[in-house]
């Protein structure tokens, strides 16, 4: 099952540049939360702070509290690797391991963690590919075809399956469909709808209609600040803040 995320007074820096300012947000378990805003507003930095990926870049810094379920992820003694196992991430550009088979792509995370039970591994690979709505398309070529041989949309679902295989509680998606055609985008959106049953989803998107279609909650970021956070239907019909209104109606700037 998915878990909630509670972000309090989150600040993040790239060197001397502050990318996030006092962001507070409560993400509801087993629902999709969309993060929208213009380029450079801090939305990707925000989601990268949720699984401690921000700190992998040089000269970065994070302050504030992020709780995933009951775990304070920036608490002393909390391992970033352990955190990332609980929080899967999918990026804009599908990035399967190009030389690995479809099967090995999905099994990679578990194998890296020393998982050896062949039978169990088969089960997890199948379940992950089914959850990612890819199983029927690849089940006959699991070990024959490489991840790179799939179409862009299939590669993205393969990456989702790979993330699901380690049984995360939260899925972070950073523009997961922006490089895909409308049919593949539709499949990813349908997938998000189904994944909510098991996972909590945070999705960064430039496509406001996509946010409106998939997310129960939406947060609007501007210049590193969370300007407004509310139910998606409220944000897109009667936003409270003029800046949100200007952005979603295309009158920004």
């Amino acid at each position, binding site marked *: 099952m998915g878990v909630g995320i509670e972000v309090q007074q989150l600040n993040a820096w790239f060197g001397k540049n502050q990318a996030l300012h006092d962001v507070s947000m409560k993400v509801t378990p087993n629902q999709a939360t969309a993060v929208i805003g213009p380029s450079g507003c801090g939305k990707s930095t925000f989601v990268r702070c949720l699984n401690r990926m921000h700190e992998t870049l040089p000269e970065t810094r994070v302050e504030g509290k992020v709780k995933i379920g009951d775990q304070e992820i920036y608490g002393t003694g909390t391992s970033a690797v352990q955190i990332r196992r609980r929080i899967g991430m999918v990026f804009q550009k599908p990035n399967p391991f190009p030389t690995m088979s479809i099967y090995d792509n999905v099994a990679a995370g578990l194998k890296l963690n020393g998982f050896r039970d062949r039978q169990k591994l088969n089960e997890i690979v199948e379940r992950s590919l089914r959850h990612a709505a890819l199983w029927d398309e690849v089940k006959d070529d699991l070990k024959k075809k490489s991840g790179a041989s799939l179409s862009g949309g299939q590669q993205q679902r393969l990456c989702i399956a790979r993330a699901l295989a380690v049984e995360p509680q939260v899925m972070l998606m950073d523009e997961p469909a922006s490089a895909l055609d409308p049919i593949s985008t539709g499949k990813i959106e349908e997938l998000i709808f189904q994944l909510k049953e098991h996972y909590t989803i945070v999705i960064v998107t430039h496509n406001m209609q996509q946010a409106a279609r998939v997310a129960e909650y939406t947060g609007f970021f501007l210049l590193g600040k969370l300007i407004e*956070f509310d139910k998606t239907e*409220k944000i*897109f*019909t009667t936003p409270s803040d003029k800046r949100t209104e200007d952005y*979603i109606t295309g*009158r920004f700037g």
Partner: protein
Amino acid sequence: MRTRFQQGLDELREKLLRMGGLAEQAVDRACEAYRDRDLARCHQVLEGESVINAAERDIDEVAFDLLAMQQPMATDLRFILAVVKINSDLERVGDQAVNIVERVMDMVDLPTVDLPVDISRMANATSAMVRRALESFIEGKDELAQAVLEMDNVVDRMRDEAFISLVRKMNEAPDATQQSLDALLIARNLERVADHATNIAEDVIFWVRGRDVRHNAGVTRRTTPVVPET
């Protein structure tokens, strides 16, 4: 800025204003036709109906295209929805004007009798409501729209008074029944015009404030305080 979208919204606004002018004119002409028992005016209203109907279709088409092509959000979405609904109300206002002149055409052939009803006063109040509802739309002012809502009770009361006095007239002077009935139906048509003006004002409030005030509800879309206290 989305220039093409803005042009579409401007076009929609202009077309609706023109439609509003036609509907308002139809009601005014219908009331003049009643006051002067003027058949020429009646025919003007009847001929004007097809123009209003065509304008209604035209506005719906522009709104439909904008919804399909531009994916409007927030105030733009509320504006387009309000225009579609106001458009429908204005077309119904045109229908009520036609109903009124049909009664007038009936009355022209009947002997003139003194009727205990001030249709002109009611017509003035109703026209004022339509005019102000349209002004509230033009200026995007919800307080003007709110004033229209408050005027509706006045017209309702006029309609009730007209009913009571005209039914009494029918009882007292059976030979004036047909004329009384025509006047009574006209009072009802005017009251319906006032209802449409009220609907228009409610739609303007929805567009401007994002509040649904229909049926005295005053519902704002629910806001959930989801940002934790810090």
